[in-house]
């Protein structure tokens, strides 16, 4: 089949079962957009025009996290491509599959500082799993095949293909490869049996075992395998931020949320565990606190598909390079059925302490302004936890992670590794596009919401019925909290004046409502949930509310503060 490079690029996407592209046109990618004209008109593929390339990147991340398939982005050369850097970095840190296609100036003028030329491969190398610049049209089929293969296999990640304008315009005989085999890239997915036996022995002899599960459970779709193993060996399960919703949070073995603002139990008790099984998580510093005394007395088993994660932060007794699912399934075959009743109860006791000290007052205050935790709890109750929740970054993010009672597996999306403010709203577009039948709720702070507020335009134009919640505390809350606690309350540049969000939404043609008083909260939430289209619900919350518990930076998780 004789095709231009531009047509070949889109045909390649169809071969990879891509149905949606998030993008923004410009000079160097115009031939591709011209070819796209036919494909979108014949409804073979859908293109969503964002308002900023960063928005396209995060939308693709949302898509990638819910489907497990790479989200696809189009952007032009120069500023179009550099606008993607934050989203690429975010996807790289958070292990999200994504394929970005950027236009590039003519190959003849590369390196001459041509108009809208940027060294995209150079700029993005540290934030991509792989990248390649196509200058010859014939390279297109193989490079696309390779890009998708790399993005979705092993430890998933973002990949970038930069295509020069002349390669987009040239013609050639298109044929898409059916198979791909790379000499240098063959991720190990099956666990080593010797290591599994070693791990099983450690668990079988353990009195106080603990599972730390992360994003890998979702990526590997290992929810059942995790559940079965925990159940059989009676091991409490604590989850990282990205691991949330991978284990039922109403289960007796659910130990809670790990990390700086996580639950009291899994933080203090992790240092009492004698064997820790870490799976699909990477011992981020927000989880470990001060590393030198983290899990000091425990023997550690670590399952990860990326060998570079093993022994990276802490020493492990049983490193297992594998996909989480087969590793957990295999482990189950070697595990003794056990009961750790007393140990499990210790977590319940901790929860009871946290409940009286924090939960009750945070979620159900009787007087004073609305609290963030209260708002999140009411939304959680109103949806019965049956929603896909996308949060931005800040205090509200930790509050959502702590208090939303996720019912659906893989139903919480947030920027973890990079902590990218502005992630939430565009990521929710990707999630909603991939799961149109599910309730998708985006929850942001007043600061982060304004970092990609322009995407309200995309949401309106594409009629995406996303439920958008802004928890407005009038501050860059998380930074303010740190200034209060660690910088003598010297509030430096954290007070933020915001526009009338409801009027802004209205200007975009999006309905909205502002809630200031407790008695209006339930009504506002139900109005939002009943709305057929997108809806912005702004909730004025207590201005100087703090998130607790908290492990101060540099402190041990054992020293977690309850107030």
């Amino acid at each position: 089949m004789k095709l231009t490079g531009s047509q070949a690029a889109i045909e390649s996407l169809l071969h990879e079962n891509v149905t949606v592209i998030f993008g923004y046109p410009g000079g160097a990618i115009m031939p591709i957009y011209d070819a796209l004209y036919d494909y979108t008109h014949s409804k073979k593929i859908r293109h969503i025009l964002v308002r900023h390339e960063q928005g396209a990147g995060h939308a693709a991340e949302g898509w990638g996290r819910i489907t497990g398939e790479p989200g696809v982005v189009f952007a032009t050369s120069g500023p179009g491509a550099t606008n993607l850097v934050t989203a690429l970095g975010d996807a790289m840190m958070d292990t999200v599959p994504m394929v970005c296609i950027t236009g590039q100036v003519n190959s003849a003028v590369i390196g001459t500082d041509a108009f809208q030329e940027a060294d995209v491969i150079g700029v993005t190398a540290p934030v991509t799993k792989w990248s390649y610049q196509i200058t010859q049209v014939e390279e297109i089929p193989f490079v696309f095949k390779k890009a998708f293969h790399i993005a979705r296999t092993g430890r998933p990640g973002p990949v970038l293909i930069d295509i020069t304008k002349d390669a987009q315009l040239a013609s050639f005989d298109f044929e898409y490869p059916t198979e791909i085999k790379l000499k240098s890239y063959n991720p190990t997915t099956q666990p080593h049996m010797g290591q599994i036996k070693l791990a099983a022995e450690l668990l079988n002899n353990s009195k106080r075992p603990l599972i730390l599960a992360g994003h890998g459970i979702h990526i590997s779709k290992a929810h059942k395998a995790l559940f079965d193993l925990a159940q059989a060996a009676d091991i409490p399960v604590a989850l990282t931020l990205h691991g949330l919703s991978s284990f039922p949070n109403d289960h007796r073995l659910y130990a809670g949320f790990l990390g700086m603002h996580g639950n009291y139990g899994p933080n203090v008790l992790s240092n009492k565990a004698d064997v820790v099984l870490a799976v699909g998580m990477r011992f981020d510093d927000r989880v470990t606190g001060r590393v030198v005394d983290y899990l000091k007395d425990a023997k550690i088993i670590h399952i990860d598909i990326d060998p570079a994660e093993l022994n990276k932060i802490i020493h492990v007794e049983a490193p297992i390079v594998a996909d989480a699912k087969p590793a957990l399934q295999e482990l189950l075959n070697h595990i003794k059925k056990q009961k750790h009743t007393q140990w499990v109860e210790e977590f319940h006791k901790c929860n009871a302490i946290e409940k009286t000290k924090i939960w009750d007052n945070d979620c159900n205050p009787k007087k004073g302004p609305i609290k963030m935790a209260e708002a999140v709890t009411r939304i959680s109750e109103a949806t019965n936890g049956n929603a896909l929740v996308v949060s931005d970054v800040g205090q509200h993010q930790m509050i959502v992670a702590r208090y939303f009672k996720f019912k659906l597996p893989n139903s919480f999306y947030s920027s973890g590794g990079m902590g990218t403010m502005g992630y939430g709203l565009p990521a929710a577009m990707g999630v909603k596009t991939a799961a149109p039948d599910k309730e998708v709720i985006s929850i942001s702070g007043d600061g982060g919401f304004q970092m990609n507020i322009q995407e309200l335009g995309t949401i309106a134009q594409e009629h995406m019925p996303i439920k958008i919640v802004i928890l407005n505390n009038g501050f860059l809350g998380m930074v303010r909290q740190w200034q209060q606690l660690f910088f003598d309350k010297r509030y430096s540049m954290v007070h933020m004046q915001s526009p009338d969000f409801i009027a802004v939404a209205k200007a975009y043609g999006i309905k909205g409502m502002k809630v200031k008083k407790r008695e209006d909260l339930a009504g506002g939430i139900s109005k939002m949930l009943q709305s057929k289209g997108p809806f912005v619900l702004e909730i004025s919350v207590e201005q100087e509310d703090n998130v607790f518990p908290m492990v101060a930076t540099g402190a041990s998780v054992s020293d977690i503060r309850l107030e």
Partner: protein
Amino acid sequence: MKNYYTIIAFTENTPGVLYRIADLFLRRKINIESLTVSEVKNEDQSRFTIVVFAEPDLVEKIGKQLYRIIEVVKVIDSVDTDLVAREIALLKVSANKLEQRKEIEHLVSISSFVRIIEVKKNYLILEKTGTEKDINDFYELMKPYGIKEFVQSGRIAVFNT
């Protein structure tokens, strides 16, 4: 304790690999003491020979992180005792007077792995191969005569096992 390590990485022979490898060392703040890239015969691969002075633990970690680069096929890190390693140096040594020239020629004839490759009115160009130490020693030996220019390659190495 810090030590010298030679990291040998086999990679696919495509552009951009060097960039990614260099970036990794930069991020980990490991200074590259020397770097040689050569083609692997009969295979479309490159062989990176990277010498670093670093903690063993960090060398192991960077070895694993190198595997994250898609084009990297194999990484082996080793200490000097596992290797036979050589470098090459070119020295442009002043030789204005006959006396000097004779002395240098004599030293060259009794040293191993040194050749005179260029003879000019005012100088000689010498080629010395050997280990870093051999080359340093020879440099010191020539220093009194006046070294007008000196250049030394990165290390190349084969496994001695």
